[in-house]
């Protein structure tokens, strides 16, 4: 994936490493990391800082029996969590969110389809399928939107995004992504505004083509 040219910015990466990034965005970051060696090494750098913080942190005595409790369990059998593998265009974190099954697409009109992977009060993450040449109508988001391209490509006012690229749209960005000619574009998109994104459906019926 040497062609990846849009990466995860530092503030999002630190929040991911530290665990303060909401789940929806973390899934996009983990998926990008699976496709981008540059960001993988950057994450390792931030984990090294986290390690240094841990290493030099003020110690707090543990209960006398904790050590023995841990030693008593060293030989206990344990169950490995199931590991998911990349399948086709979907990196392992997406396959895990899909539970190892193919996505269940819901049509949104104009050939656009979505498959919601996870939704909570902190954000929504979904797969979007956009036919080539089709615009994703302007969808308002109150906060951050992260969009990772898994197949095909799209362009908008800010640039061209191919496989592995992640677009970071902060609250103030007005943009209308248009899927490139060629393959349909499949993206993994996370937003923090579940409610506002619902206006996506009616807006899709009256698409605004803005370049």
């Amino acid at each position, binding site marked *: 994936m040497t062609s990846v040219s849009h990466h995860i910015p530092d503030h999002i990466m630190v929040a991911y490493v530290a665990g*303060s990034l909401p789940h929806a965005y973390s899934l996009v*970051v983990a998926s990008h990391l699976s496709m981008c060696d540059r960001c993988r090494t950057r994450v390792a750098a931030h984990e090294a800082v986290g390690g240094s913080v841990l290493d030099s942190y003020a110690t707090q005595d543990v209960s006398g029996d*904790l050590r023995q409790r841990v030693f008593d369990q060293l030989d206990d059998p344990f169950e490995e969590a199931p590991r998911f593998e990349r399948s086709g265009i979907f990196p392992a974190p997406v396959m895990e969110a899909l539970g190892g099954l193919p996505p269940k697409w819901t049509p949104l009109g104009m050939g656009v389809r979505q498959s919601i992977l996870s939704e909570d009060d902190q954000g929504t993450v979904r797969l979007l399928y956009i036919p080539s040449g089709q615009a994703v109508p302007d969808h308002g988001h109150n906060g951050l939107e992260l969009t990772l391209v898994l197949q095909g490509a799209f362009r908008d006012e800010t640039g061209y995004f191919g496989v592995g690229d992640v677009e970071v749209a902060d609250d103030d960005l007005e943009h209308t992504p248009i899927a490139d000619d060629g393959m349909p574009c499949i993206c993994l998109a996370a937003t923090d505004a579940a409610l506002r994104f619902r206006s996506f459906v009616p807006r899709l019926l009256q698409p605004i083509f803005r370049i």
Partner: protein
Amino acid sequence: MRGEKKQKTEEKGDPKAPSHRKPNMLTSLSDQLLAADAPLATVDGDTANQREGESVGQESLTDQTVWMLAVRDHRDRQAFGRLFDYFAPRLKGVICRSGLPPSQAEDIVQDVMLTVWRKAAMFDPERAQVSAWIYQIARNKQIDTLRKEKRPVPEELKLPEETQEDAAQVLALDQETQKLRVALGRLKPAQREMVEKAYLGELTHADIREQTGLPLGTIKSRIRLGLERLRHELKEQGLT
């Protein structure tokens, strides 16, 4: 304590000590480190690496790395005990900071340390220093506990079977991490506090973006070299 006798043998550096891992350069390095008066592993090929490999002594690897390699390669319980004694009180410190009651914090400490033992084979000292590896396990456990939902983690890198760990890379990463620690230790208290808040999950991504006092430049410059080298290797192996 079970396994005590076996460790003693290994600490003397029994060359026939069984390894749970494929024999490779690093295993031999850990064997040599555990052996008294053993010469350091030298590295073939890359002259730059060789220069570094020759210039560092046994004491250049942190104790934690030596213990972790003994756990990974020899299931050494005494070394694991040392890791526990070192990390458990630190883990409890950072976990209690998040406001969890001490008993629940200790449950997480226990979970983290058991994971260290069980997943030791995944420890790759070319890619992460021990404290960074344990930090990341602890963050995952803490998030899993708080959110009852697994934190998304990237795909495992598939390293070719025959890949040998590069002893010079391991030493270099260990040393650069030590330099990073020194650099962070020299920060002004307010900056230091900001780093702790950011890396212990107390700041949102928006907070971090606005936080111009975060010494991200220092962080990048201190460990850039080792990580760039790693990246170069990944490229050469055609993994990316």
